[in-house]
Each structure stands twice: as structure tokens, then as C-alpha cells.
């Protein structure tokens, strides 16, 4: 079943995964990663220079994956391109059949390895959702018509774990009112914040209008958790969570159990439509996770 159909009908929990960044090379590398990840998930997110590091472009990798039969969610961030270039990317990708777009504001340039770069942010995340919705309806921001426009499935992201909570809940509403049909949530390790956020967006009707997907990150050890806590903007990993893994004799297994608990909680919350996976382990853990929860095309 297509990601679009799952988002619209929500007949079962959805599972998506972040496709690894590609750093040049050939299409063989895309194919290898796809063979590992593709069969396990309903769709893959192609990132757009994640954490402000340059990689093979979102459009190029999305086309490569589309040609391999993937259901692609093309992420588009506001940091690197102005409104003209962003619209060109979206309609260009749609020409190749990539019609699912996830709009993000994007990490700042200072998060990356070229902090001296100029930051653009000509649009912001909510504005980009509205602009993509306009393209979906056949109109560039200027008002000029898109030739034989394709209907797009537009989504976005939100971070329930960064303050202020009530604003996050309202901002999710703003994004959905602007046209988002799904929201993939930032990773977080404070379940009470996810619960509060979800209760808020159930109350304001967001979960009725959009598929909400919390994210989990697959890591191997406590070092990875400490790194995220110290270095990644908007992510807090409480010390007791780091300790739970650090004090275990089998850190990879303890890391998995942590993720398993997070997924269990996420799927139990009213309004959650599925989960999104970021895999930093590059082993068979994605397969184990989807199997344990009967997610994805292989188990449905």
C-alpha cells in the first residue's frame, strides 16, 4: 500500500525510515542501501543536506530511488535555497514522479561543517508547506501556472521536545492548516513531553487531519546518546536514559530495548499514525524492529 494511501486511510500503523546520506559516488550505492532498507518500510525520507552538511542532492537521490521503485518522501529545507530554487526542485522532482514532499525549516549552517556559509531561509517551514500546497494546486508563488501540475502530498515536521510546548501544539495546527497531511516528529527521550504534545494536537484536531509519526533513532551505545545530547540542536537525552544503556553489559541490546519501549509508547498514544526510523546502526535492527511490531510491507 502506498504511503499516500496509508496517510489518507490509516488502515494500519505506518513505518518510514530516513535514507542514508549519499556523498557522491555512483547509483550503485543508492541501490545497495535501498536493498537493505526498502523492503522493510512503507516509504523512505530522502534528506536535504542534513545537519547542514553537503551531500548528493535531495532531488538526485529521490530520482534514483524512484527508479528503483521506492515510495519517496523528499525532504526540502529552507536553509540553502531561496523560494525560486525550492519551487524549481519541487516541480522538477514531481516531473520524475516524486510527489511527496516534507517541508522543514532546517538546521542552521552553524550545525554543519561549513559554518561560514550564507544562510538563506527565504521561506520558513510553515511558509514552505503553503508554497508546496500552491504548487500542488498548479500555481507557482508568483501566480504563474505550473504546466500539467501533479497533485502533491505535502507534509512537515514538528519538535514536541523543544519549548514552548503550547506553541508547538499551535504550530502543528498552523502547518496542517497550511496544507500538511503528515507530520514527522523530532526524536526525543522525554515520553511525558510526547504525551502532552499528542494530547494537545488530538484536542485541536491535528491528528484528524494529518498522520502523525514520532521518530526513533537506532543507536548502538551510550556514546551515541551522549553525542546527541551534547551536539544536536533540539535534542535532550536525560542522564538516566544514557545511564540505562551505559550501565548495561550489552549496550547494543540495551539500546534496542530503549527504542522498543519508545515505539511501544508512541504506538499506544491516541493520534499516532506510525513511526519514523533513523538508523545509525546499519545492521539488522530495522528488520528486528518492524518484525517485533508487525510494521511495514513484509508484515502486512
Amino acid at each position, binding site marked *: 500500500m502506498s504511503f499516500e494511501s496509508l496517510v489518507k486511510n490509516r488502515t494500519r500503523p505506518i513505518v518510514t525510515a530516513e535514507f542514508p546520506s549519499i556523498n557522491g559516488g555512483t547509483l550503485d550505492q543508492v541501490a545497495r542501501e535501498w536493498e537493505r532498507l526498502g523492503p522493510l518500510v512503507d516509504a523512505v525520507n530522502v534528506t536535504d543536506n542534513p545537519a547542514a552538511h553537503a551531500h548528493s542532492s535531495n532531488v538526485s537521490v529521490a530520482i534514483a530511488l524512484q527508479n528503483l521503485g521506492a515510495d519517496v518522501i523528499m525532504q526540502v529545507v529552507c536553509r540553502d535555497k531561496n523560494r525560486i530554487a525550492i519551487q524549481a526542485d519541487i516541480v522538477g522532482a514531481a516531473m520524475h514522479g516524486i510527489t511527496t514532499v516534507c517541508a522543514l525549516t532546517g538546521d542552521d549552517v552553524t550545525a554543519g561543517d561549513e559554518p561560514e556559509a550564507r544562510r538563506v531561509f527565504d521561506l*520558513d517551514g*510553515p*511558509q514552505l508547506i503553503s508554497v508546496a*500546497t500552491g504548487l500542488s494546486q498548479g500555481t507557482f508563488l508568483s501566480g504563474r501556472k505550473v504546466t500539467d501540475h501533479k497533485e502533491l502530498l505535502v507534509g512537515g515536521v514538528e519538535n514536541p521536545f523543544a519549548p514552548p510546548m503550547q506553541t508547538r501544539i499551535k*504550530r502543528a*495546527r498552523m502547518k496542517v492548516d497550511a496544507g500538511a497531511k503528515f507530520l514527522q516528529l523530532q526524536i526525543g527521550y522525554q515520553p511525558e513531553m510526547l504525551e502532552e504534545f499528542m494530547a494537545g494536537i488530538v484536542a485541536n484536531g491535528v491528528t484528524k487531519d494529518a498522520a502523525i509519526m514520532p521518530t526513533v533513532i537506532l543507536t548502538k551505545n551510550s556514546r551515541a546518546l551522549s553525542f546527541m545530547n551534547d551536539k544536536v*540542536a*533540539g535534542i535532550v537525552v536525560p542522564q538516566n536514559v544514557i545511564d540505562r544503556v551505559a550501565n548495561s553489559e550489552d549496550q547494543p541490546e540495551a539500546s534496542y530495548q530503549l527504542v522498543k519501549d519508545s515505539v511501544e509508547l508512541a504506538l499506544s498514544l491516541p493520534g499516532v499514525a506510525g513511526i519514523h526510523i533513523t538508523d545509525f546502526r546499519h545492521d539488522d535492527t530495522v528488520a528486528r524492529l518492524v518484525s517485533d511490531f508487525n510494521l511495514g510491507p513484509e508484515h502486512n
Partner: protein
Amino acid sequence: MKKPIWDCRMCGQCVLHSTGMTCPMTCPKTLRNGPCGGVRENGNCEVIPEMQCVWVKANDRAENMPLLPKSWREEISHLRPPVNNALKGDSSWLNLINGKDRETPSGWIGIDHEDAH
């Protein structure tokens, strides 16, 4: 006058009334519909760790600043359109009077906040 009080960046299309009298152009990402996902646990900015997030401040003020009309407080949740970069450096007072600050590109959909939630 706006420069010393609100650290005005001369975008030429002032939205201070709808952002708790906090200029969104002082956000390092110049976000008009923030806050971004990078806000720190203490409410400070992802880019400038010692500065309170402009949007955390804006939301706090929109809620708590005395004398703000109710409609201004509510407008913080409204979707503001992309900045018209052609107005940069203009007097926002003039653009308020002649309506230029409310013009949007003809393909801009935005949100009808009368109908929305």
C-alpha cells in the same frame, strides 16, 4: 524609533503587533513563523546559545505583555507570508499606510484564519 526599542532590521513590513512586539527578523534564521526545532531546553537559541529564542520571547510576550489587544495576542498563531525582500530598507510606517506591507504574491495561499481553527 523602532531601532532602539525593538532592534528593528528594516524589513519594511512590520509584524511586531502579531509577534508580541518582538521582531522576528532578529531570529538568526529570520523566521516569521517560528520557533524552529532547535530551541534549547532552557529556551535559548540554537545558533546563539546565550540568547533567549526570539520566538520563545515573542510567545511569552504575546501572552503576558500588558495592554496588548486580544486580536494581537491571537495573531501570533497566524501564518505570516514570506518576506517581500523588495521592501527591505523602506519605512514600514509608509508601507503600512500605503498597504504595501500587506500585499502578497498572487500565488500565495496562506491560511484563512477566519475559517481556520
